[in-house]
C-alpha cells in the first residue's frame, strides 16, 4: 500500500513561506525572499509530481478504477455528534491533476516574478501573497469536504483581492480589487446556500459521501420542489453560481477584465491558470451529483458556458489592451470547459465531455500562463499595455516572440499542439450532445484564432512605432519559465488523459474524430489568415470594417455595456429606489426617534442644571427644608 501522508507538506510549505515572508520578509534582502519563496514552491512542485507519479503509475487500481484516497482527514470543528467539520487531503484523479497544474504554474510564476518584479516596492509582500494564494489554491484542490473547499475558496478570494490590489496607490487597482471581491462574494452567497441545502439533505459534507452512491441516491429521490424545480437542482445551481462567480461566467464575468490591474504574473497565476478554473473544478468535483440528480442544471451550465465563450471571444476581437484581450480569451476558454462539463454524461464514453473539460483545463493552464507571462515580458520591454504602442517586436524579443507564437498556435488549436487535442475532444463531446452548441463552439474556435493572431501580428510584426527606449529581451529568470511552458504547451497534448482522468475513474479509449478535427483546424487557419491579411501590415480595410460596423463595433468595444447595466441596476435602481428611501427612513425616523430621546434628555438636564447654582447657601437652605420635610413625613405620616 502506498502511503500518501507526505502530501500534507504540499500545504505546509506554502503557508510556512507565507508566514516567514509575511512576518520577516522585510528583514531579508528582496532577492533572498524571492528565492526562498521560489525554492519552497519548487519543493511543492516536485512533491506534486511525485504524488502524481505514484498515484497514476504505482498505485494499484481496484476493478480497474483509480482509488479515492483520504491521505489525511482530521476533525477540525466538533460541533456535535452529527455535525463535524473536517480538514484533510483528498487524493483522486482530478485533485492530483490540479496539484500538478497549480504547483507548476505557481512555480513558474514565482521564478518569473523574481525578474519581473525586480526593484518594485513591496517585493517581499508580493511573494508572501503569492505563497498565501498557492496555499489556498492547493487547499481548495485537495479539500476532503465541501466545507473545507468553501473555506479555502474564500481564502483564494482574499488572496486574489490582495494581489489585484497590489499597487494599492493606484485608484484603479483598488477599485478593481474591490470589484473582484464583491462580485465573487456575491456569487459565494449562492455557493453557501447551495452547500447548506445539499448538506442538509445528504447529512454530510464529505465528498466521498455526497458524490458516493448514498448521496446520489438521496439527492435523486428528493421530492421537495421550489418554484417548479427540485431542491437538488436548486442546490446544485446555487453551487454553480459560486463557481460561475469565481470562473467569471456571464453575467458575473465583469470583475475579470478589471482584475488585470494586478501585476502580470498574478494575472497569469490567478486570473488565467488556477483560480478562475476553480469553478470548473467545483462542478467536476460534484459531477456525479450533477449528472444523476440534476441534469437540468448541467444543461444550464452548458448554455452559460457556450454563451460566455462566444460573448467573450467577440469582445476580445475589439480590445486594444493586450492583457484585456487575454482576459477575454480566458473567459472564452473557461466557457469551453464549462460547456464540456455541461454536455457530458457519466461514465465511460459518455463521460467524454468531463474528460475533455479536465484535459482542456490542464492544457489551457499551460498555454494561458505562457501567454500572460509572454505579455508580461512584452510589457516589461515597452512599458505599455496597449498594442497601438507596439509593433515589430520580433527583432527585439526573439525568445518571447517564439514562445508567444507557440502559445498562439496552441490556443488556435493547430495540430499537433496541446490545444488541438483538448479542444477537439470538447468539440466531439458537444457534437454528440447538442448541435447548436457545437456550431457556436466551432465559430468560437475561428474567432479565437483570429483575435489571438490579431494580437500577435499587431505586437510582433506591423509597423514599428517610435520607442523611447530600445526594447530589450527579458532576463533569463523570465525567459526560462516561458521556454518551459512552451515545451509543456507543445507536448501535454499527448498525455493519455482518457486513461487517467475520467468521470467514473475508469479508463476508456478516446479516438480523434477526423470529421471534426479537420474542419476545426481549417477554421483556425482561416482565422489566422484573416488576421494575417488585416494586421500583418497596417491595412486600410480595418478602419473601413470598423466604420462599416458602426454602432455594433462600439457596442462590442464597450463590452456590450454590461458594466453600465450593472451600474444602472445598482446605482439607479437599487440605490435610488431602495437604498435611498431606506436610508431616509433610517436617518429621519429611526435616528430621529433616538435623537429625540437624547434631545429631550439634554433639554431637561439643561433646565435642571440651573438648580446647581454653586451657592453653598442655596444647598443648605434646601437641605434644611428637606430635613424638616423628612421629619414631618416620618413623624406624622409614617406612624
Amino acid at each position, binding site marked *: 500500500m502506498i502511503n500518501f501522508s507526505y502530501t500534507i507538506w504540499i500545504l505546509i510549505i506554502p503557508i510556512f513561506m507565507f508566514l516567514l515572508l509575511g512576518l520577516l520578509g522585510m528583514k531579508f534582502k528582496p532577492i533572498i525572499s524571492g528565492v526562498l519563496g521560489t525554492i519552497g514552491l519548487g519543493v511543492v512542485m516536485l512533491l506534486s509530481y511525485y504524488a502524481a507519479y505514484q498515484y497514476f503509475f504505482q498505485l494499484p487500481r481496484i476493478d480497474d478504477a483509480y482509488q479515492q484516497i483520504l491521505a489525511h482527514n482530521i476533525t477540525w470543528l466538533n460541533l456535535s455528534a452529527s455535525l463535524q467539520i473536517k480538514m484533510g487531503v483528498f487524493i483522486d484523479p482530478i485533485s492530483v491533476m490540479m496539484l500538478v497544474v497549480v504547483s507548476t504554474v505557481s512555480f513558474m510564476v514565482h521564478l518569473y516574478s523574481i525578474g519581473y518584479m525586480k526593484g518594485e516596492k513591496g517585493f517581499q509582500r508580493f511573494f508572501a501573497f503569492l505563497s498565501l494564494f498557492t496555499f489556498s489554491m492547493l487547499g481548495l484542490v485537495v479539500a476532503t469536504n465541501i466545507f473545507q473547499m468553501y473555506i479555502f475558496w474564500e481564502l483564494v478570494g482574499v488572496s486574489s483581492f490582495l494581489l489585484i490590489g497590489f499597487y494599492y496607490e493606484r485608484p484603479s487597482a483598488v477599485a478593481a480589487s474591490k470589484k473582484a471581491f464583491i462580485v465573487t462574494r456575491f456569487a459565494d452567497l449562492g455557493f453557501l446556500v447551495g452547500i447548506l441545502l445539499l448538506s442538509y439533505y445528504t447529512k454530510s459534507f464529505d465528498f466521498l459521501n455526497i458524490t458516493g452512491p448514498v448521496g446520489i441516491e438521496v439527492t435523486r429521490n428528493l421530492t421537495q420542489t421550489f418554484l417548479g424545480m427540485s431542491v437538488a437542482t436548486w442546490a446544485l445551481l446555487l453551487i454553480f453560481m459560486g463557481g460561475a462567480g469565481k470562473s467569471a461566467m456571464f453575467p458575473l464575468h465583469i470583475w475579470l477584465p478589471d482584475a488585470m490591474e494586478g501585476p502580470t504574473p498574478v494575472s497569469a497565476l490567478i486570473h488565467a491558470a488556477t483560480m478562475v478554473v476553480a469553478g470548473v473544478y467545483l462542478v467536476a468535483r460534484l459531477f456525479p451529483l450533477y449528472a444523476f440528480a440534476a441534469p437540468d442544471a448541467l444543461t444550464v451550465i452548458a448554455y452559460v458556458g457556450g454563451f460566455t465563450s462566444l460573448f467573450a471571444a467577440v469582445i476580445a476581437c475589439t480590445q486594444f489592451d493586450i492583457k484585456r484581450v487575454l482576459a477575454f480569451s480566458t473567459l472564452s476558454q473557461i466557457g469551453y470547459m464549462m460547456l464540456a462539463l455541461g454536455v457530458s454524461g457519466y461514465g465511460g464514453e459518455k463521460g467524454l465531455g468531463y474528460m475533455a473539460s479536465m484535459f482542456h483545463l490542464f492544457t489551457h493552464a499551460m498555454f494561458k500562463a505562457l501567454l500572460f507571462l509572454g505579455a508580461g515580458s512584452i510589457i516589461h520591454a515597452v512599458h505599455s499595455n496597449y498594442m497601438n504602442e507596439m509593433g515589430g517586436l520580433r527583432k527585439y524579443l526573439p525568445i518571447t516572440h517564439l514562445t508567444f507564437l507557440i502559445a498562439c498556435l496552441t490556443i488556435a488549436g493547430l495540430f499537433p499542439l496541446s490545444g488541438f487535442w483538448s479542444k477537439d475532444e470538447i468539440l466531439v463531446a458537444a457534437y454528440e450532445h447538442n448541435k447548436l452548441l457545437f456550431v457556436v463552439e466551432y465559430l468560437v474556435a475561428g474567432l479565437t484564432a483570429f483575435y489571438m493572431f490579431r494580437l500577435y501580428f499587431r505586437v510582433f510584426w506591423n509597423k514599428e512605432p517610435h520607442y523611447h527606449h530600445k526594447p530589450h529581451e527579458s532576463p533569463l529568470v523570465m525567459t526560462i519559465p516561458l521556454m518551459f511552458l512552451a515545451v509543456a504547451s507543445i507536448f501535454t497534448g499527448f498525455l493519455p488523459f482518457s486513461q487517467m482522468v475520467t468521470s467514473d475513474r475508469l479508463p476508456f479509449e478516446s479516438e480523434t474524430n477526423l470529421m471534426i478535427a479537420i474542419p476545426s483546424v481549417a477554421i483556425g487557419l482561416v482565422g489566422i489568415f484573416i488576421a494575417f491579411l488585416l494586421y500583418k501590415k497596417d491595412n486600410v480595410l480595418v478602419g473601413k470594417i470598423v466604420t462599416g460596423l458602426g454602432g455594433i463595433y462600439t457596442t462590442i468595444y464597450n463590452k456590450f455595456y454590461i458594466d453600465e447595466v450593472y451600474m444602472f441596476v445598482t446605482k439607479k435602481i437599487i440605490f435610488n429606489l431602495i437604498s435611498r428611501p431606506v436610508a431616509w427612513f433610517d436617518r429621519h425616523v429611526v435616528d430621529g426617534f433616538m435623537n429625540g430621546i437624547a434631545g429631550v434628555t439634554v433639554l431637561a438636564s439643561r433646565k435642571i442644571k440651573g438648580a446647581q447654582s454653586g451657592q453653598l447657601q442655596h444647598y443648605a437652605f434646601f437641605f*434644611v427644608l428637606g430635613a424638616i420635610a423628612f421629619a414631618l413625613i416620618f413623624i406624622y405620616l409614617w406612624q
Partner: protein
Amino acid sequence: MTAYKIMFYLFAAMIIVFSILTVTSRRILRAAVFLLFVLISTAGLYFWLDYQFMAGVQLALYAGGIVVLIIFSILLTSHIDQKFSQPHWSKRIMAATAALSGMGLCLLLFLQHTFIHGTNPPIKNDMTAIGTQLLSTEHNGFALPFEVISILLLAAMIAAIIIAKKGK
C-alpha cells in the same frame, strides 16, 4: 422668685439676645464678641447645672480658644471697620421661614412629649470622677473615644497646617 431662677432667666435671655446679635450684626468683630458672650452665658448655664468641669472646658476651649482663633482670622482677612451690607430681603425671609418652621416643629414635638425623669441620686461628677471614667478601660470607660479624639485632633492640626501653608 429665687436667685437660681433669676440667674437662669438672665442666662437664657443673654444667650438668645446675643445669638441673634451674632447672626445679625453688620460688623464682624462685634459679631465675634457677641459670640463670646453667648459662649460665656452657656458656661454659666453649665455652672447653674453644677457641671463645673464642663463649664470650665467651655470657657477655656470655646471662649478662650476658638473665639480667639476666629478673631485672629478676622484680623487676617477682613477690614475691621467694614460694615456688611444687609442681606437681600428675600434671602432673609426664606432663611427665617426655614428656621422658624424648623423651630416650631421641634418645640411642638418636645413640649408635647413627656420625659421620664431619673429618680436615682445624682453621682458626684467632680474632676476625679470624670478623669477616672474618661481614662477607664472598664465598663462605661471612655478610653477608646478619648484616644480616637486625640488622633482626630492631631489629624486636624496637620491638615490645618498643610492647607494653610503658603505655596509649595
